[in-house]
Protein backbone atom coordinates (compact mmCIF):
# COMPACT_ATOMS: atom_id res chain seq x y z
CA UNK A 1 0.00 0.00 0.00
CA UNK A 2 1.49 3.33 -1.06
CA UNK A 3 1.00 6.24 1.27
CA UNK A 4 -0.84 9.11 -0.42
CA UNK A 5 -3.71 7.65 -2.45
CA UNK A 6 -5.48 9.75 -5.04
CA UNK A 7 -2.46 11.69 -6.19
CA UNK A 8 -2.39 13.45 -9.54
CA UNK A 9 0.99 13.33 -11.24
CA UNK A 10 2.38 14.41 -14.59
CA UNK A 11 5.22 12.43 -16.17
CA UNK A 12 7.14 13.84 -19.14
CA UNK A 13 8.56 11.56 -21.79
CA UNK A 14 6.10 8.93 -20.63
CA UNK A 15 5.23 7.51 -24.03
CA UNK A 16 7.81 4.75 -23.60
CA UNK A 17 10.72 3.35 -21.63
CA UNK A 18 11.40 4.57 -18.11
CA UNK A 19 8.69 7.23 -18.30
CA UNK A 20 6.13 4.60 -19.15
CA UNK A 21 7.41 2.47 -16.29
CA UNK A 22 6.95 5.33 -13.83
CA UNK A 23 3.47 6.04 -15.18
CA UNK A 24 2.42 2.42 -14.70
CA UNK A 25 3.94 2.13 -11.24
CA UNK A 26 2.02 5.24 -10.16
CA UNK A 27 -1.12 3.82 -11.76
CA UNK A 28 -0.81 0.68 -9.66
CA UNK A 29 -1.25 2.91 -6.60
CA UNK A 30 -4.51 4.18 -8.05
CA UNK A 31 -3.12 7.60 -8.96
CA UNK A 32 -4.16 9.78 -11.85
CA UNK A 33 -1.28 9.90 -14.30
CA UNK A 34 -0.90 12.48 -17.03
CA UNK A 35 1.25 11.07 -19.77
CA UNK A 36 3.02 14.13 -21.16
CA UNK A 37 4.74 13.51 -24.46
CA UNK A 38 5.06 14.75 -28.02
CA UNK A 39 4.02 11.46 -29.58
CA UNK A 40 0.21 11.41 -29.31
CA UNK A 41 -0.42 7.82 -30.41
CA UNK A 42 2.16 6.25 -28.10
CA UNK A 43 1.22 8.59 -25.26
CA UNK A 44 -2.45 7.74 -25.57
CA UNK A 45 -1.60 4.04 -25.52
CA UNK A 46 0.30 4.45 -22.27
CA UNK A 47 -2.67 6.37 -20.84
CA UNK A 48 -4.80 3.35 -21.72
CA UNK A 49 -2.24 1.09 -20.02
CA UNK A 50 -2.54 3.27 -16.93
CA UNK A 51 -6.30 2.72 -16.89
CA UNK A 52 -5.79 -1.01 -17.29
CA UNK A 53 -3.65 -1.37 -14.16
CA UNK A 54 -5.87 0.62 -11.82
CA UNK A 55 -5.04 4.27 -12.37
CA UNK A 56 -6.65 7.04 -14.37
CA UNK A 57 -4.61 7.74 -17.45
CA UNK A 58 -4.72 10.92 -19.46
CA UNK A 59 -2.56 12.01 -22.36
CA UNK A 60 -1.46 15.59 -22.81
CA UNK A 61 0.75 16.92 -25.59
CA UNK A 62 3.90 18.44 -24.20
CA UNK A 63 7.17 19.61 -25.67
CA UNK A 64 9.29 20.36 -22.62
CA UNK A 65 11.54 22.71 -24.61
CA UNK A 66 8.70 25.12 -25.17
CA UNK A 67 7.34 27.44 -22.46
CA UNK A 68 3.85 27.65 -23.93
CA UNK A 69 3.57 23.92 -24.37
CA UNK A 70 4.66 23.23 -20.79
CA UNK A 71 2.32 25.86 -19.36
CA UNK A 72 -0.58 24.44 -21.38
CA UNK A 73 0.12 20.91 -20.21
CA UNK A 74 0.19 21.94 -16.56
CA UNK A 75 -2.95 23.99 -17.03
CA UNK A 76 -4.71 21.01 -18.63
CA UNK A 77 -3.98 18.95 -15.52
CA UNK A 78 -5.24 21.48 -13.03
CA UNK A 79 -8.32 22.41 -15.07
CA UNK A 80 -9.40 18.79 -15.29
CA UNK A 81 -8.29 17.38 -11.94
CA UNK A 82 -8.10 20.51 -9.81
CA UNK A 83 -4.70 19.70 -8.37
CA UNK A 84 -1.18 18.58 -9.14
CA UNK A 85 0.72 16.55 -6.56
CA UNK A 86 3.77 15.51 -8.48
CA UNK A 87 5.77 16.28 -11.60
CA UNK A 88 8.31 13.85 -13.01
CA UNK A 89 10.68 15.25 -15.62
CA UNK A 90 11.84 12.15 -17.42
CA UNK A 91 12.04 13.36 -21.03
CA UNK A 92 15.49 13.45 -22.49
CA UNK A 93 16.87 14.36 -25.89
CA UNK A 94 16.81 11.77 -28.63
CA UNK A 95 20.51 12.58 -29.01
CA UNK A 96 21.22 11.17 -25.54
CA UNK A 97 22.54 7.73 -26.54
CA UNK A 98 24.57 8.96 -29.51
CA UNK A 99 28.33 8.60 -28.86
CA UNK A 100 30.30 11.78 -29.57
CA UNK A 101 33.63 13.46 -28.90
CA UNK A 102 32.79 16.54 -26.88
CA UNK A 103 35.22 18.72 -28.80
CA UNK A 104 33.38 17.93 -32.05
CA UNK A 105 29.76 18.20 -30.91
CA UNK A 106 27.79 20.74 -32.95
CA UNK A 107 26.61 23.59 -30.78
CA UNK A 108 23.08 22.96 -31.99
CA UNK A 109 23.25 19.49 -30.45
CA UNK A 110 24.49 20.91 -27.15
CA UNK A 111 21.56 23.32 -27.28
CA UNK A 112 19.14 20.45 -27.87
CA UNK A 113 20.44 18.51 -24.86
CA UNK A 114 20.16 21.63 -22.71
CA UNK A 115 16.70 22.51 -23.95
CA UNK A 116 15.13 19.16 -23.14
CA UNK A 117 16.80 18.41 -19.83
CA UNK A 118 17.62 21.68 -18.13
CA UNK A 119 15.29 24.20 -19.76
CA UNK A 120 12.56 21.59 -19.42
CA UNK A 121 13.30 21.42 -15.71
CA UNK A 122 13.06 25.19 -15.35
CA UNK A 123 9.84 25.47 -17.38
CA UNK A 124 8.16 22.66 -15.50
CA UNK A 125 9.28 24.08 -12.16
CA UNK A 126 8.00 27.53 -13.06
CA UNK A 127 4.60 26.34 -14.28
CA UNK A 128 4.01 23.68 -11.65
CA UNK A 129 5.25 25.43 -8.52
CA UNK A 130 2.00 27.17 -7.48
CA UNK A 131 0.11 23.89 -7.78
CA UNK A 132 2.79 21.82 -6.06
CA UNK A 133 2.84 24.35 -3.25
CA UNK A 134 -0.93 24.11 -2.87
CA UNK A 135 -0.74 20.32 -2.75
CA UNK A 136 2.52 20.16 -0.75
CA UNK A 137 3.70 17.99 -3.58
CA UNK A 138 7.03 17.20 -5.14
CA UNK A 139 9.16 17.47 -8.26
CA UNK A 140 11.22 14.51 -9.37
CA UNK A 141 14.02 14.85 -11.92
CA UNK A 142 15.25 11.78 -13.77
CA UNK A 143 19.00 12.00 -13.95
CA UNK A 144 21.61 9.31 -14.56
CA UNK A 145 24.75 7.73 -13.25
CA UNK A 146 26.38 9.63 -16.13
CA UNK A 147 25.57 12.77 -14.17
CA UNK A 148 27.75 11.51 -11.33
CA UNK A 149 30.72 9.96 -13.06
CA UNK A 150 30.72 11.60 -16.48
CA UNK A 151 30.96 9.64 -19.71
CA UNK A 152 33.85 9.77 -22.15
CA UNK A 153 31.61 9.38 -25.19
CA UNK A 154 28.34 10.78 -23.83
CA UNK A 155 29.65 13.98 -22.29
CA UNK A 156 26.77 16.31 -23.31
CA UNK A 157 24.28 13.88 -21.82
CA UNK A 158 26.37 13.54 -18.66
CA UNK A 159 26.54 17.33 -18.32
CA UNK A 160 22.81 17.96 -18.52
CA UNK A 161 22.03 15.04 -16.20
CA UNK A 162 24.53 16.45 -13.72
CA UNK A 163 23.00 19.89 -14.03
CA UNK A 164 19.63 18.43 -13.12
CA UNK A 165 21.17 17.02 -9.93
CA UNK A 166 22.36 20.48 -9.00
CA UNK A 167 19.02 22.05 -9.85
CA UNK A 168 17.27 19.48 -7.65
CA UNK A 169 19.56 20.30 -4.77
CA UNK A 170 19.10 24.06 -5.09
CA UNK A 171 15.36 23.86 -5.66
CA UNK A 172 14.99 21.68 -2.59
CA UNK A 173 16.46 24.59 -0.63
CA UNK A 174 14.18 27.11 -2.33
CA UNK A 175 10.97 25.13 -2.10
CA UNK A 176 11.46 23.44 1.26
CA UNK A 177 9.93 26.32 3.23
CA UNK A 178 6.83 25.96 1.04
CA UNK A 179 6.51 22.28 1.82
CA UNK A 180 7.47 21.20 -1.70
CA UNK A 181 10.10 18.48 -2.06
CA UNK A 182 12.54 18.10 -4.95
CA UNK A 183 14.51 14.94 -5.62
CA UNK A 184 16.43 13.18 -8.33
CA UNK A 185 16.40 9.58 -9.47
CA UNK A 186 19.29 8.00 -11.35
CA UNK A 187 18.14 4.76 -12.94
CA UNK A 188 19.88 2.11 -14.94
CA UNK A 189 16.99 0.54 -16.77
CA UNK A 190 16.11 -1.71 -19.60
CA UNK A 191 14.55 0.72 -22.05
CA UNK A 192 14.41 1.58 -25.74
CA UNK A 193 16.94 4.38 -25.08
CA UNK A 194 19.36 1.94 -23.50
CA UNK A 195 18.87 -0.50 -26.37
CA UNK A 196 19.65 2.33 -28.82
CA UNK A 197 22.81 3.10 -26.87
CA UNK A 198 23.82 -0.56 -27.01
CA UNK A 199 23.16 -0.55 -30.75
CA UNK A 200 25.39 2.52 -31.21
CA UNK A 201 28.26 1.02 -29.21
CA UNK A 202 28.71 -2.72 -29.60
CA UNK A 203 30.88 -3.14 -26.49
CA UNK A 204 28.63 -1.12 -24.25
CA UNK A 205 26.30 -3.90 -23.11
CA UNK A 206 29.16 -6.02 -21.77
CA UNK A 207 30.75 -2.94 -20.22
CA UNK A 208 27.54 -1.86 -18.48
CA UNK A 209 26.54 -5.27 -17.21
CA UNK A 210 30.09 -6.35 -16.38
CA UNK A 211 30.49 -3.79 -13.64
CA UNK A 212 26.97 -4.10 -12.27
CA UNK A 213 26.90 -6.12 -9.02
CA UNK A 214 23.44 -7.42 -9.84
CA UNK A 215 24.46 -8.14 -13.42
CA UNK A 216 21.31 -6.88 -15.07
CA UNK A 217 19.34 -3.79 -16.02
CA UNK A 218 16.48 -2.56 -13.87
CA UNK A 219 12.85 -3.17 -14.72
CA UNK A 220 11.19 0.15 -15.68
CA UNK A 221 7.97 -0.59 -13.76
CA UNK A 222 8.82 -2.87 -10.84
CA UNK A 223 12.16 -1.33 -9.95
CA UNK A 224 12.57 2.14 -11.44
CA UNK A 225 8.88 3.04 -11.40
CA UNK A 226 8.45 1.82 -7.83
CA UNK A 227 11.37 3.94 -6.65
CA UNK A 228 9.92 7.00 -8.39
CA UNK A 229 6.52 6.31 -6.84
CA UNK A 230 8.15 6.15 -3.41
CA UNK A 231 9.81 9.55 -3.89
CA UNK A 232 6.49 11.05 -4.99
CA UNK A 233 4.53 9.46 -2.17
CA UNK A 234 3.90 10.60 1.38
CA UNK A 235 6.28 7.84 2.51
CA UNK A 236 9.07 10.12 1.30
CA UNK A 237 7.66 13.20 3.04
CA UNK A 238 11.01 13.84 4.74
CA UNK A 239 13.19 13.19 1.70
CA UNK A 240 14.28 16.21 -0.33
CA UNK A 241 17.37 17.39 -2.18
CA UNK A 242 18.39 13.78 -2.66
CA UNK A 243 19.26 11.84 -5.81
CA UNK A 244 18.43 8.18 -5.39
CA UNK A 245 20.50 5.78 -7.47
CA UNK A 246 18.51 2.79 -8.70
CA UNK A 247 21.20 1.19 -10.76
CA UNK A 248 21.96 -2.21 -9.31
CA UNK A 249 24.95 -0.72 -7.51
CA UNK A 250 26.86 -0.02 -10.69
CA UNK A 251 27.84 3.64 -10.27
CA UNK A 252 31.28 3.94 -8.66
CA UNK A 253 30.75 7.56 -7.59
CA UNK A 254 28.64 8.67 -4.65
Amino acid at each position, binding site marked *: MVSGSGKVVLVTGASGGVGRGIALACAEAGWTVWVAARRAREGSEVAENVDAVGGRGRYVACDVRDATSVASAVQAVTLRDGRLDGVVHNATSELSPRPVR*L*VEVPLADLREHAAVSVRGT*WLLARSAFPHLRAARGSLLLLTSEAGFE*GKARLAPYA*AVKAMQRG*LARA*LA*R*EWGPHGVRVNGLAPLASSPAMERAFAEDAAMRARVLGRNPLGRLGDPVREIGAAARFLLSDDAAYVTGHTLMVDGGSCPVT
Partner: protein
Amino acid sequence: MTGDPRHASERARPLILGTDVAAVRALAGALDGRLEWVPAAEGDAALETWRRRCASAAPCAQIVVALWSEIPPRGDTPLTDMDADMWETRAEAPLIAWSVALAAAASRCADGGAVVGVIEAPAALDAAGFAPEVGLAVAVRALARSLAASEGARGVRVNTVTTQARLGVEPLAPAPPLASFPGRVEREVAGAVRLLLSPDAAGITGGTLAADSGRAW
Protein backbone atom coordinates in the same frame (compact mmCIF):
# COMPACT_ATOMS: atom_id res chain seq x y z
CA MET B 1 60.13 29.51 -34.41
CA THR B 2 59.64 26.56 -32.11
CA GLY B 3 63.33 26.53 -31.20
CA ASP B 4 63.25 30.09 -29.93
CA PRO B 5 63.76 29.90 -26.13
CA ARG B 6 61.47 32.93 -25.67
CA HIS B 7 58.60 30.95 -27.23
CA ALA B 8 59.45 27.88 -25.17
CA SER B 9 59.37 29.93 -22.00
CA GLU B 10 56.04 31.51 -23.02
CA ARG B 11 54.54 28.06 -23.65
CA ALA B 12 55.67 26.93 -20.20
CA ARG B 13 53.36 29.47 -18.55
CA PRO B 14 49.80 28.31 -17.83
CA LEU B 15 47.28 29.28 -20.47
CA ILE B 16 44.15 30.88 -19.03
CA LEU B 17 41.08 30.51 -21.24
CA GLY B 18 38.74 32.98 -19.64
CA THR B 19 36.27 35.79 -19.88
CA ASP B 20 37.44 39.39 -19.88
CA VAL B 21 36.65 40.00 -16.23
CA ALA B 22 38.79 41.56 -13.49
CA ALA B 23 38.68 38.43 -11.32
CA VAL B 24 39.89 36.25 -14.19
CA ARG B 25 42.72 38.69 -14.83
CA ALA B 26 43.56 38.48 -11.14
CA LEU B 27 43.62 34.69 -11.30
CA ALA B 28 45.86 34.81 -14.37
CA GLY B 29 48.18 37.23 -12.61
CA ALA B 30 48.45 35.03 -9.54
CA LEU B 31 49.30 32.04 -11.73
CA ASP B 32 51.64 34.02 -13.98
CA GLY B 33 49.43 32.81 -16.80
CA ARG B 34 48.84 34.16 -20.28
CA LEU B 35 45.27 35.02 -21.09
CA GLU B 36 43.16 34.13 -24.07
CA TRP B 37 39.62 35.42 -24.11
CA VAL B 38 36.72 33.07 -24.66
CA PRO B 39 33.64 34.79 -26.14
CA ALA B 40 31.38 33.03 -23.66
CA ALA B 41 28.63 35.63 -23.71
CA GLU B 42 28.73 36.59 -27.38
CA GLY B 43 26.54 33.88 -28.81
CA ASP B 44 27.04 30.47 -30.34
CA ALA B 45 28.49 31.71 -33.64
CA ALA B 46 31.33 33.51 -31.86
CA LEU B 47 31.93 30.47 -29.71
CA GLU B 48 32.09 28.21 -32.77
CA THR B 49 34.61 30.53 -34.43
CA TRP B 50 36.72 30.53 -31.27
CA ARG B 51 36.55 26.74 -31.04
CA ARG B 52 37.86 26.38 -34.61
CA ARG B 53 40.69 28.81 -33.93
CA CYS B 54 41.56 27.03 -30.70
CA ALA B 55 41.75 23.68 -32.50
CA SER B 56 44.65 24.87 -34.62
CA ALA B 57 46.52 26.68 -31.84
CA ALA B 58 49.75 25.42 -30.33
CA PRO B 59 49.37 22.87 -27.53
CA CYS B 60 49.98 23.85 -23.96
CA ALA B 61 50.89 21.74 -20.92
CA GLN B 62 48.81 23.65 -18.38
CA ILE B 63 45.41 25.15 -19.16
CA VAL B 64 42.95 26.84 -16.83
CA VAL B 65 39.36 27.58 -17.86
CA ALA B 66 37.47 30.31 -15.99
CA LEU B 67 34.28 31.56 -17.63
CA TRP B 68 33.00 34.03 -15.08
CA SER B 69 30.41 36.72 -15.67
CA GLU B 70 31.36 40.35 -15.25
CA ILE B 71 28.83 40.88 -12.49
CA PRO B 72 28.75 37.93 -10.10
CA PRO B 73 25.31 36.31 -9.85
CA ARG B 74 23.25 37.23 -6.80
CA GLY B 75 21.08 34.80 -4.91
CA ASP B 76 18.02 37.00 -4.79
CA THR B 77 15.94 35.52 -7.61
CA PRO B 78 14.18 32.19 -7.05
CA LEU B 79 14.27 29.89 -10.05
CA THR B 80 10.54 30.24 -10.57
CA ASP B 81 10.85 34.04 -10.84
CA MET B 82 13.51 34.01 -13.53
CA ASP B 83 12.52 35.19 -16.98
CA ALA B 84 13.81 33.67 -20.20
CA ASP B 85 16.68 36.14 -20.52
CA MET B 86 17.97 35.48 -17.02
CA TRP B 87 17.66 31.73 -17.50
CA GLU B 88 19.61 31.90 -20.76
CA THR B 89 22.28 34.15 -19.26
CA ARG B 90 22.78 32.18 -16.07
CA ALA B 91 22.07 28.61 -17.17
CA GLU B 92 21.96 27.58 -20.81
CA ALA B 93 24.52 29.93 -22.36
CA PRO B 94 27.14 29.18 -19.68
CA LEU B 95 26.50 25.45 -20.03
CA ILE B 96 27.18 25.65 -23.77
CA ALA B 97 30.24 27.85 -23.27
CA TRP B 98 31.72 25.57 -20.60
CA SER B 99 31.09 22.49 -22.75
CA VAL B 100 32.91 24.07 -25.67
CA ALA B 101 35.75 25.68 -23.73
CA LEU B 102 36.57 22.76 -21.46
CA ALA B 103 36.57 20.33 -24.40
CA ALA B 104 38.74 22.68 -26.44
CA ALA B 105 41.13 23.01 -23.51
CA ALA B 106 41.42 19.25 -23.06
CA SER B 107 41.95 18.77 -26.77
CA ARG B 108 44.63 21.48 -26.88
CA CYS B 109 46.37 20.20 -23.77
CA ALA B 110 49.73 18.59 -24.50
CA ASP B 111 50.16 14.90 -23.69
CA GLY B 112 50.84 14.52 -19.98
CA GLY B 113 49.46 17.99 -19.26
CA ALA B 114 46.72 19.25 -16.98
CA VAL B 115 43.47 21.18 -17.33
CA VAL B 116 41.65 22.86 -14.47
CA GLY B 117 38.18 24.40 -14.71
CA VAL B 118 37.42 27.01 -12.06
CA ILE B 119 33.71 27.34 -11.44
CA GLU B 120 31.75 29.63 -9.15
CA ALA B 121 29.08 28.02 -7.01
CA PRO B 122 27.77 28.18 -3.47
CA ALA B 123 27.71 25.13 -1.25
CA ALA B 124 24.53 23.05 -1.13
CA LEU B 125 23.44 24.55 2.18
CA ASP B 126 23.51 28.03 0.68
CA ALA B 127 22.05 27.11 -2.69
CA ALA B 128 18.71 28.95 -2.51
CA GLY B 129 18.63 31.61 -5.22
CA PHE B 130 21.63 30.12 -6.98
CA ALA B 131 19.99 27.21 -8.77
CA PRO B 132 21.60 27.91 -12.18
CA GLU B 133 25.05 28.26 -10.63
CA VAL B 134 24.72 25.13 -8.51
CA GLY B 135 23.45 23.18 -11.52
CA LEU B 136 26.20 24.54 -13.74
CA ALA B 137 28.90 23.63 -11.24
CA VAL B 138 27.70 20.03 -11.07
CA ALA B 139 27.55 19.97 -14.87
CA VAL B 140 31.12 21.27 -15.20
CA ARG B 141 32.30 18.60 -12.78
CA ALA B 142 30.64 15.96 -14.98
CA LEU B 143 32.22 17.49 -18.07
CA ALA B 144 35.61 17.35 -16.37
CA ARG B 145 35.08 13.73 -15.41
CA SER B 146 34.01 12.91 -18.97
CA LEU B 147 37.12 14.57 -20.37
CA ALA B 148 39.33 12.98 -17.71
CA ALA B 149 38.08 9.63 -18.97
CA SER B 150 38.51 10.40 -22.66
CA GLU B 151 41.90 12.15 -22.40
CA GLY B 152 43.44 9.98 -19.71
CA ALA B 153 45.05 7.70 -22.29
CA ARG B 154 47.23 10.68 -23.33
CA GLY B 155 48.16 11.32 -19.72
CA VAL B 156 46.04 14.48 -19.68
CA ARG B 157 44.43 15.23 -16.33
CA VAL B 158 41.21 17.26 -16.00
CA ASN B 159 40.00 18.60 -12.65
CA THR B 160 37.82 21.36 -11.25
CA VAL B 161 38.07 23.92 -8.49
CA THR B 162 34.97 25.50 -7.01
CA THR B 163 34.92 28.93 -5.42
CA GLN B 164 32.47 31.28 -3.77
CA ALA B 165 34.93 34.16 -3.58
CA ARG B 166 32.77 36.62 -5.55
CA LEU B 167 29.26 35.40 -4.77
CA GLY B 168 28.45 37.35 -1.64
CA VAL B 169 26.81 34.33 -0.05
CA GLU B 170 25.55 34.70 3.51
CA PRO B 171 26.27 31.21 4.85
CA LEU B 172 23.62 29.46 6.87
CA ALA B 173 24.70 27.94 10.18
CA PRO B 174 27.09 26.39 10.88
CA ALA B 175 29.70 28.92 9.86
CA PRO B 176 32.44 27.75 7.48
CA PRO B 177 35.33 26.21 9.43
CA LEU B 178 37.93 28.76 8.32
CA ALA B 179 37.56 32.46 8.95
CA SER B 180 39.03 33.08 5.52
CA PHE B 181 35.62 32.33 3.92
CA PRO B 182 34.80 33.07 1.13
CA GLY B 183 38.47 33.16 0.21
CA ARG B 184 40.30 35.21 -2.38
CA VAL B 185 40.83 34.48 -6.03
CA GLU B 186 44.49 35.42 -5.88
CA ARG B 187 45.27 33.27 -2.85
CA GLU B 188 42.97 30.36 -2.01
CA VAL B 189 41.62 29.78 -5.52
CA ALA B 190 44.96 30.24 -7.26
CA GLY B 191 46.57 27.92 -4.70
CA ALA B 192 44.14 25.11 -5.43
CA VAL B 193 44.61 25.58 -9.17
CA ARG B 194 48.39 25.62 -8.81
CA LEU B 195 48.28 22.34 -6.92
CA LEU B 196 46.12 20.62 -9.55
CA LEU B 197 48.35 21.87 -12.37
CA SER B 198 51.50 20.70 -10.64
CA PRO B 199 53.27 17.32 -10.76
CA ASP B 200 52.19 16.87 -7.13
CA ALA B 201 48.72 16.17 -8.50
CA ALA B 202 49.97 13.60 -11.03
CA GLY B 203 47.56 11.01 -9.69
CA ILE B 204 44.51 13.27 -9.52
CA THR B 205 42.04 13.51 -12.38
CA GLY B 206 38.28 13.89 -12.63
CA GLY B 207 38.30 15.39 -9.15
CA THR B 208 37.05 18.59 -7.57
CA LEU B 209 38.73 20.76 -4.96
CA ALA B 210 36.44 23.13 -3.11
CA ALA B 211 38.53 26.23 -2.43
CA ASP B 212 35.93 27.61 -0.06
CA SER B 213 37.40 27.55 3.44
CA GLY B 214 35.69 24.29 4.18
CA ARG B 215 32.12 25.39 3.41
CA ALA B 216 31.30 22.45 1.14
CA TRP B 217 32.29 18.88 1.76
